[in-house]
């Protein structure tokens, strides 16, 4: 019994027939060839597969595809563009917040959701927001610095 899935990916409407026990992670990577979203633990523990569902971070490995029906999904492909990076992406580069890069897509989306809701978080709030994203390289320090710097830059830009 295929499921007629209709949803929005990075603002574009997508219609696709899926098996109901396929995960959103699988649909994004294998059906839509959007491989920015990473496959990590596939148990909801590591956060590498994080996407935004109606603006909120979720682990796409635990989200059955029908759950996305009628909803909006943002993946790392929808954050900034090669010509115009998202301020968080620029800050991650400036602070060396990526080493192997595998946690990057999920980490950036968790951070983007935080700043959208709370533009000037404290360090504790940043750490809380990325607690569900594991990074095995950086020790988190540079990631936290980069997110705080992005929020500070936004603050400066607001001041005329």
């Amino acid at each position, binding site marked *: 019994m295929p499921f007629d899935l209709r949803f929005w990916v990075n603002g574009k409407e997508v219609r696709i027939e899926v098996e109901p026990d396929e995960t959103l992670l699988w649909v994004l990577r294998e059906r839509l060839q959007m491989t920015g979203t990473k496959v990590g633990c596939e148990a909801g523990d590591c956060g590498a597969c994080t996407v935004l569902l109606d603006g909120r971070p979720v682990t796409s490995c635990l*989200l059955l595809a029908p759950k996305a*029906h009628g909803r909006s999904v943002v993946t790392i492909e929808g954050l900034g563009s090669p010509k115009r990076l998202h301020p968080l992406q620029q800050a991650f580069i400036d602070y060396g917040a990526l080493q192997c890069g595998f946690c990057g897509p999920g980490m950036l989306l968790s951070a983007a959701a935080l700043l959208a809701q709370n533009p000037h978080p404290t360090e504790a709030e940043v750490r809380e927001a990325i607690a569900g994203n594991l990074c095995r390289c950086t020790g988190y320090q540079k990631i936290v610095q980069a997110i705080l710097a992005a929020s500070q830059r936004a603050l400066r830009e607001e001041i005329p």
Partner: protein
Amino acid sequence: MALPYFVPTSVQEAVDILAHYSGDAKVIAGGTDLVVRMREGVLRPAALVDIERIPSLSFISLEDHRLRIGATTTISTILESSEVQRCAPVLSEAARRMGAVQLRNRATIGGNLASAVPSADMAPPLLVLGALVHITGPSGERALPIDAFFIGPHQSALRPDEVLTFVDVPVLESGSGAAFVKFGKRSAQVIAVVNAAAWVRVQGGRIEEARIALGAVAPTPIRARSAEALLRGQEIRGELLEWAAHAAAEEARPITDFRGTLEYRRELCRVLVRRALEQALHRAMEGE
């Protein structure tokens, strides 16, 4: 083989589908537990019944001094709710310690109970608050005290053709207080080694009534009733809380696994129950 997937829009429709599959279909809410168990091959349901789109199951309401929380209300929604914070702050406290953002955005209060894992973080606070679990099945609706809900690991009083619809707790009164504490190997995204909740009602320096619950130390979340009995009617003094904490640890039936040994868990019970009681008492006396 393709898995039949149903998206009912009413509880009655969900119950009808479950009845049609005579117990072989599974209800899916947030899916944070179910999808993992299906992937591990532990669960092989004949069909899935997705209750997330049933509007009447997602709500937080306040009526006649009772706080009601619909089954598919997410842990994030509970955490962000000012009504929960005001009327049952111990639930906000437990919600804050569950998983991380991604999990809290999907996991639901009904799912946390229906999965019936011994470590469920929402269970100890609901046990000490004396929650009622409301259930709808083919023969109608019933309300079950949460003390009778958990039966064993992954086993509850919820029958396969029933849907958990909401939980119902009394609003915190002045002179009473509750607290939740959890010990895990990290501060976020962990299954508790031990979790505990306490609720007390005090008057004039005396504990009128006390309830204590523990998780991850028995086949189900449990009440520590002999510890509660030690506290009931007692004047708050000296080593009273320590005695109760000790009694609660003796009542626990922990096992050794990769998260902790039996002995370690028993010691944690003592420490966590003491901390939960101290905090609950402090909050009760503040509001007395």
